[in-house]
């Protein structure tokens, strides 16, 4: 039985008034949709139709047997698990390179950061152009270097890597900036001491820099997970899930089921699978990295 002293209760009216505006909107546009999505997934709900039938677990049985669901699930996992580490490694190297008194710092920072400011639709569209098989500059460059021309977004095995490459360009600058802020707090004399002891630059990075900025790295990984949702925009603009569903991801599959097939019930079941995937990913990160970070941080 919790006990509240007088002090604890006096603030309740003020707190309620101050939290109410946020809570109303959170309830309407965050909690209610999540609960409702669970409810929908047990029913047959068609977009624009008032009739709803109880289906029990039927949508989920369908989900487990749906090879396209598993494919888009695999694509989502592949995208998330490749894009985040690759763009963070890229960002870390850039941040280490910029972590000195360097002339032209503002130029470099802007050069790497500006893609963050570009709307996803514009970025996706421009990269469609860059990847164009016939006249695109990337193939032009590859031909000039004597490399084989690729079909990129039209090739089943290259379409996803192409989107991942673009995502690294889009987000590495953001992660770099956050990491740079953390690097600047690392005491310089640690590096001095390491240099005097003859420790190589690679070992300095692995044994001094990374442990000391691990809380920020952890934060950046979480931010990366949340940004990976945006793949919907790129898939929508660049490939529409193709070729042959090679870039179909869960968010796009939800969209297809809901707005092309009008099947809200089934789309909700897919949406819940996505929510579970994100919860599991963050729980795993918190249980593994989160603990280590704390340990190293102290």
């Amino acid at each position, binding site marked *: 039985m*919790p006990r*509240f002293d007088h*002090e604890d209760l006096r*603030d309740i009216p003020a707190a*309620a008034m*101050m*939290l109410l*505006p*946020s809570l*109303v*909107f*959170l309830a*309407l*546009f*965050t909690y209610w*949709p*999540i609960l409702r*999505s669970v409810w929908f997934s047990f029913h047959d709900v068609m977009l624009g139709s008032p009739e709803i039938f109880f289906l029990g677990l039927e949508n989920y049985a369908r989900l487990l047997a749906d090879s396209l669901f598993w494919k888009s699930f695999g694509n989502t996992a592949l995208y998330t698990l490749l894009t985040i580490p690759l763009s963070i490694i890229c960002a870390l190297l850039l941040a280490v*390179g*910029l972590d000195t008194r*360097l002339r*032209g710092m503002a*130029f*470099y920072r*802007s*050069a790497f950061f*500006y*893609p963050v*400011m*570009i*709307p*996803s639709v*514009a*970025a996706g*569209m*421009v*990269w469609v*152009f860059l990847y*164009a098989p*016939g*006249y695109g*500059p990337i193939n032009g460059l590859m031909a000039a270097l004597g490399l084989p021309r690729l079909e990129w977004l039209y090739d089943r095995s290259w379409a996803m890597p192409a989107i991942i490459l673009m995502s690294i*360009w889009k987000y590495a600058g*953001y992660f770099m*900036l*956050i*990491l740079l*802020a*953390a690097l600047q707090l690392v005491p310089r004399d640690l590096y001095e001491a390491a240099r005097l002891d003859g420790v190589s630059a690679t070992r300095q990075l692995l044994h001094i820099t990374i442990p000391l900025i691990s809380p*920020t790295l952890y*934060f950046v990984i979480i931010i990366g997970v*949340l940004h990976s*949702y945006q793949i919907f*925009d790129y898939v929508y603009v660049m490939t529409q899930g193709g070729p042959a569903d090679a870039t179909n991801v869960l*968010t796009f599959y*939800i969209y297809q089921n*809901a707005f092309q097939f009008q099947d809200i019930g089934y789309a909700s079941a897919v*949406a819940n699978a996505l*929510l579970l995937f994100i919860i599991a990913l*963050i729980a795993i990160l918190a249980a593994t990295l989160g603990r280590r970070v704390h340990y190293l941080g102290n």
Partner: protein
Amino acid sequence: MRHMLCKYWQHFVLLPVALLWLSPVLWIGVTSLKTKSEVFDSAAGWLPDIAQWSNYPAALSVAPFGRYLINSVLVTGSIIAAQLVTITLAAYAFARLRFPGKNLLFGLFLVQIMFPIYAIFLTNFVTIRELGLMNSLWALIVPFVASGYGTFMLHQAFRQVPSELADAARLDGCGHLSTLWHVYLPLVKPTLVAFAIISVVTHWNDYMWPLLVTNSEEVRTLPIGLGLLAKADSGADWTRLMAATIVVVSPLLLFFVIFQRRFVDSFMHAGIK
């Protein structure tokens, strides 16, 4: 020579990478000034023969970009204005008031960070339809009025404010709201600016949600207009499309160039605090 190499090695590595990073935007700029045939002609070289400035008026005349711009300003402006009110009040309650169930409620606010609109667009779409807000600017604003992330950022900042200051204000007879206004807000301005910048960048560039809930010119925003133009042209007229892209991306990029320090500080700040 050796000395030079030692002194400038970073530039030898960083400059090519920076140019690689800049190449897409340079390519947009260059293409926006080409003729249609130069785009598809691989023998034409990287630069246009004569800069075709007329691509710009041509791009702007195919769609009502003025309308899109006004809508983008209205939507982004309303979201940030509403967010600043909701997050300030909520963050103050979490940072300075005592009430039962505080940790649980704070956790509920953080749920929103994990499940952004991309994860729950489907049922939100149904809600917006039921509220009769489809195809209105309201549909683009209301889902974003509360912000778990903003509340979290501001909560951290409020906790840094010495409680003696607040106690002094209380003794002078200030209520919660005037303490918040006169004592807390002036002290957390950098955090407010940081959150505002991040939020504006996010919502100015939003694509998926406006795509789902709008279907007429009157309520479309800049990114949606650009996407429609891309669909209509479908690779046929890259020059016009790239000119439109420059127009759409330049407001934020221009702000970024002018207020570089502020922007950089904001995004860095958001990371540590």
